[in-house]
């Protein structure tokens, strides 16, 4: 295709890499895969959050009260949130490494979204229910799902390695937006059960809420729209928690919406808030408020956590083909962990010993994560047929029996089973 004026291929255009530094900024893909001018503009636009952002802890580590979201912060809370984010980032990085070393077929990094996920996750009570998409490793952590339980999905040994019922953290849902409707239905059930709107008794509340996690890309899906319509129609106690990380693989958020995403809630008739998704304190304060609104019968609520996907969409993706390193550098200055560390240090809430101990704990977690991953066995063939149905199913029982006889026929001949043959 011929170069058109103003295109990246056109010499002399402002987008043509003329220096080694420019080329480096574009990353390894270099000329082969450059962001288009519109992508560059979209990406830079995504660094501007507008005037409606709820922020409590600034990127420089300054804590400011917000009149709409009054929130008590103490040293224990901040140290806990810091620890959560460091540990989650550490095993997330290990996930990337394990994929590169062939131990995982894919990993879905959350780098940059630690605050958005830990803030929301720590706002949940044990009785609340969470419906994740597939990047919510930080929320999983808060729900008590061990990081090693996330590995099976990406190593190919299971589709969900934890008990979604017991943890009240549903299985990862890969079809974009599906879980938003499932969450809405669950929340409708909470309302039908009378699990919202009761006064507290003895300081205890039996009220519950549901939270649905999805991304900016998912907001284009019909299921997200229908979820919001149903939630409004049935006054469902569900928090629609959209992590706007600016990129749906290669498509900037402006491909999904002309208006800021949080403003969509107005059209459905419930409140929406845009929160600094890199500010764990604000995410916690706003989500806690939103869940309480739902528990007390004032749901649904939408939250847009304005954040950034610092890494690729997955380990199979190459962001250098569609966005500039400059943009990543801008967001690096807004890092969710650094601002908490600065605040803890400056306020004398934590000393070097604390930071060192969290670092050591993170390394131990990563080592355990790695060792567990490498030791995960291939499941037995019976697993193919297990739990397809809750009740007996003669057709599958027959298929399983026939396949096991087939496998056994190899053993009778003293040769390897097909699964053991090295190809």
């Amino acid at each position: 295709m011929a170069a058109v004026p103003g295109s990246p291929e056109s010499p002399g255009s402002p987008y043509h890499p003329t220096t080694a530094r420019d080329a480096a900024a574009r990353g390894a893909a270099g000329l082969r895969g450059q962001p288009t001018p519109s992508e560059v503009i979209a990406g830079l636009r995504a660094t501007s959050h507008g005037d409606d952002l709820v922020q409590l802890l600034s990127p420089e580590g300054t804590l400011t009260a917000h009149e709409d979201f009054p929130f008590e912060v103490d040293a224990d809370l901040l140290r806990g949130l810091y620890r959560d984010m460091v540990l989650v980032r550490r095993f997330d990085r290990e996930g990337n490494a394990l994929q590169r070393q062939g131990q995982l077929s894919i990993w879905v990094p959350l780098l940059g979204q630690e605050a958005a996920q830990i803030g929301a996750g720590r706002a949940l009570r044990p009785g609340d229910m969470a419906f994740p998409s597939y990047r919510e490793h930080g929320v999983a952590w808060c729900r008590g799902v061990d990081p090693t339980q996330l590995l099976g999905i990406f190593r190919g040994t299971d589709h969900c390695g934890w008990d979604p019922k017991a943890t009240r953290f549903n299985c990862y849902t890969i079809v974009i937006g599906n879980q938003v409707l499932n969450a809405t239905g669950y929340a409708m059930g909470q309302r039908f059960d009378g699990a919202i709107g009761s006064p507290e008794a003895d300081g205890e509340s039996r009220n519950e809420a549901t939270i649905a996690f999805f991304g900016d890309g998912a907001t284009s899906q019909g299921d997200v729209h229908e979820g919001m319509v149903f939630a409004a129609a049935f006054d469902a106690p569900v928090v629609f928690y959209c992590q706007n990380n600016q990129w749906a693989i290669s498509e900037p958020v402006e491909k999904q919406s002309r208006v800021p995403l949080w403003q969509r809630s107005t059209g459905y008739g419930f409140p929406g808030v845009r929160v600094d998704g890199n500010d764990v304190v604000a995410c916690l304060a706003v989500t806690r408020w939103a869940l309480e609104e739902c528990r007390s019968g004032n749901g649904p609520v939408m939250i847009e956590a304005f954040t950034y996907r610092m890494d690729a969409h997955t380990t199979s993706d190459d962001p250098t083909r569609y966005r500039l390193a400059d943009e990543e550098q801008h967001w690096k200055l807004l890092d969710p962990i650094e601002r908490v560390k600065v605040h803890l240090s400056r306020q004398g809430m934590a000393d070097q010993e604390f930071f060192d101990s969290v670092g050591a704990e993170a390394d131990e977690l990563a080592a355990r994560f790695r060792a567990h991953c490498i030791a995960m066995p291939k499941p037995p063939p019976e697993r193919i047929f297990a739990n397809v149905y809750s009740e007996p199913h003669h057709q599958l029982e027959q298929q399983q029996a026939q396949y096991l006889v087939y496998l056994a026929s190899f053993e009778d001949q003293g040769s390897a089973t097909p699964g053991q043959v090295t190809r």
Partner: protein
Amino acid sequence: MNDGAVSSPRSGADSKPVTLAKALNMSLRAAMDEDPKVIVMGEDVGKLGGVFRVTDGLQKDFGDHRVLDTPLAESGIIGTAVGLAMRGYRPVAEIQFDGFVFPGFDQIISQVAKVTYRSQGAWSMPLVIRIPFGGGIGAVEHHAEAPESFFCHIGGLRVVACSTAQDAYDMLRAAISCDDPVVFFEPKRRYWEKGALDLGATALTDTALTDTGAERERPPGCFSSVVRRPGTDVTVVSYGSSMPILHAAADAAAAEGRSLEVIDLRSLSPLDLGPVLDSVRKTGRLVVVSEAPRESSITADIAARVTEEAFYSLAAPVLRVAGFDTPYPPSRLEEDYLPDLDKVLDAVDRALAF
């Protein structure tokens, strides 16, 4: 119609003939009476009672928390039903017409069918999706389709089709009590045809295991096929709306001295081929009838499996009477499209000619 919210249908046993639609209504009412977790949801199922009146009177008696008039969105109906089932409800979701199921198809395939498997059994999915199906009512496009094969192809779903008032009642009760998702096809062309409904005859003999391992009673035979009429010369098999055609064919054949064995599949997934294979081993000839397009269909699967399992019993190839591999035609042409008495008798003649 007002049976009262608290009256059990068994206590008011009614042996008079009822329409198939009424039998379904009574079945829903009985299930809702018995288990407060059973809820009905769909478009126009409340005040209107559904466009076919299958849910008539239920909202009045059970309230709008148990009979939900939903926004007009099929993915929303199925997707929220999934969440309600996770919450412990037993939703019965109505899809208004066969051709309208496709906006909800993604949720059925991606979630309903896979939630139990994905969660390694942590979630069960006791959800019934009722779909009026099939043609012959002179309707506009999307109101006369037979999409059952799509669902039979998906592991994790159970698919059934009723053809009589008695089955409508019993099979829907069984489907609602099943912990697996059941796609329940209703022969809309036969909704107003009356049949005997003997509530005393639905002896609760079968048992299934509950989550806790305890045995639970359930009506028999939701997931099995039945021989409707014994015969010796040719086996004819179908389900749903085509069953009366098979009976008419058996009558016509009998007048010519030929004996047809008529089998109602009832369960489309899993297929219960035992009675079909037993019959074919006796007759050696099999004709399979369905309104659905022929390609990659239930009729195709039956032909393949009978060939695999009863090859030496066959005296003729398995023959099929099915819809053409076209979109459903304008209704003035549907008589040409649908299986009818002549097409079935023609196939019987061809099977016997071998």
